[in-house]
């Protein structure tokens, strides 16, 4: 194979960053050895700039994760208060499931425990403080988004007049509707069909 003669033109094909290290070589002639150590000659300044860019990139990524992916602006950042509700059956409700009023998320489920006396699940809802004016007659039900989607708590605010109080932090919501469990529904349906026939 023919090796092209060494000349200025060939040299100009060399990558600029490598060329940089070549020109810093004070031997007077161009040095075209291995460039595996080109970064060792890189000035401290350039290294600092690259490291700065790297760290900035990482911070930008962290910001994307915090606001775009985990969205801390919508959850947990503002002030909150808690309400409780006792259900017969919570179905597939989970920690951090949404609490919605007319489709708008106003809070999340912050804990689910079993009442040790009557063995019914007690769900704690953490709601945003700006939605705090709900009356005692409000009701909550466990709903499913779509046929197989996730379960959430649908919150319907009750009427407000002089005869009813406003729910305070820590109060129980009395009016609750449990989750619909598909197997039970089918069972009931079959049972009623069987009775009819």
């Amino acid at each position: 194979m023919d090796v092209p003669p060494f000349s200025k033109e060939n040299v100009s094909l060399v990558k600029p960053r490598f060329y940089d290290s070549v020109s810093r070589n004070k031997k007077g002639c161009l040095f075209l050895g291995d460039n595996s150590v080109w970064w060792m000659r890189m000035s401290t300044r350039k290294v600092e700039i690259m490291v700065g860019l790297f760290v900035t990139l990482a911070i930008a990524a962290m910001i994307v994760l915090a606001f775009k992916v985990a969205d801390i602006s919508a959850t947990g950042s503002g002030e909150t208060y808690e309400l409780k509700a006792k259900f017969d059956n919570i179905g597939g409700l989970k920690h951090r499931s949404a609490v919605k009023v007319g489709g708008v998320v106003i809070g999340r489920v912050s804990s689910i425990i079993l009442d040790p006396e009557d063995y019914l699940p007690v769900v704690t809802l953490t709601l945003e403080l700006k939605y705090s004016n709900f009356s005692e007659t409000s009701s909550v039900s466990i709903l499913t988004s779509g046929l197989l989607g996730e379960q959430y708590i649908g919150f319907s605010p009750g009427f407000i007049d002089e005869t009813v109080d406003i729910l305070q932090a820590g109060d129980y919501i009395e009016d609750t509707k449990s989750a619909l469990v598909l197997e039970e529904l089918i069972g009931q349906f079959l049972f009623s069909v069987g009775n009819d026939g």
Partner: protein
Amino acid sequence: MILNMLQSIGAGVFDRIGGVGRASIMLFGALFGIPSIRKGFPLFVRQIYVVGVQSLTIIMVSGLFIGMVLALQGYTVLVDYGAEDSLGPMVGLSLLRELGPVVTGLLFAGRAGSALTAEIGLMKSTEQLSSMEMMAIDPLRRVIAPRFWAGLFCMPLLAIIFSTIGILGGHLVGVEWLGIDGGNFWSIMQSKVDLVDDVFNGVIKSIVFAIVVTWISLYKGYNAVPTADGISKATTDTVVQASLAILGLDFVLTVFMFSS
């Protein structure tokens, strides 16, 4: 015969224990041996460049492709159940909790860990570490410490960048290409991903992996047999042992973090 075998097993065990001891002493020297802020910081910055900035390309490219593949595969499964809107949380959670830290760790072991081992091993074999000792400069402080801290600093950052780019890659495939609704992609992801439970736990994983990978790399280099094949063996050992350690530790950490 059996006695011989027992003897060699015993010797092997003692060798291992001795190795762990030496590695711990080295780690100790590195942890508490920062020369001084004024002298140490430029070394630290240069090592961040070598360990972190130079790993950036491979991390970003892999992150992008892994996110895109996740979205593509996830879509084909989820679309059968009409649940393709859950693609966002699927891509996000698998990247943040597992793939981000683990794949970054594996790539880091291959890209930066092996380079660290080879570099330190060669410095040893060419008596550079010895001559530093003779100049009354502790190589643990001058050579090992800045590399250790740089590794520890860079890997979580790389993992964060990896996950973020992966999620953007998933968005690219899911929303731009397969036509999922963009609003749903983000909002469902937001409702599922928790900053502390998912993002921070992933970062903690990558910090643990960073300690293990950097530690193994530096120890293998510092303890390499100072010959060509000694160094090549040390480099292989680094990649194999660091990768296994990452996978094993990942299981343990996952059990602790996500199995409530």
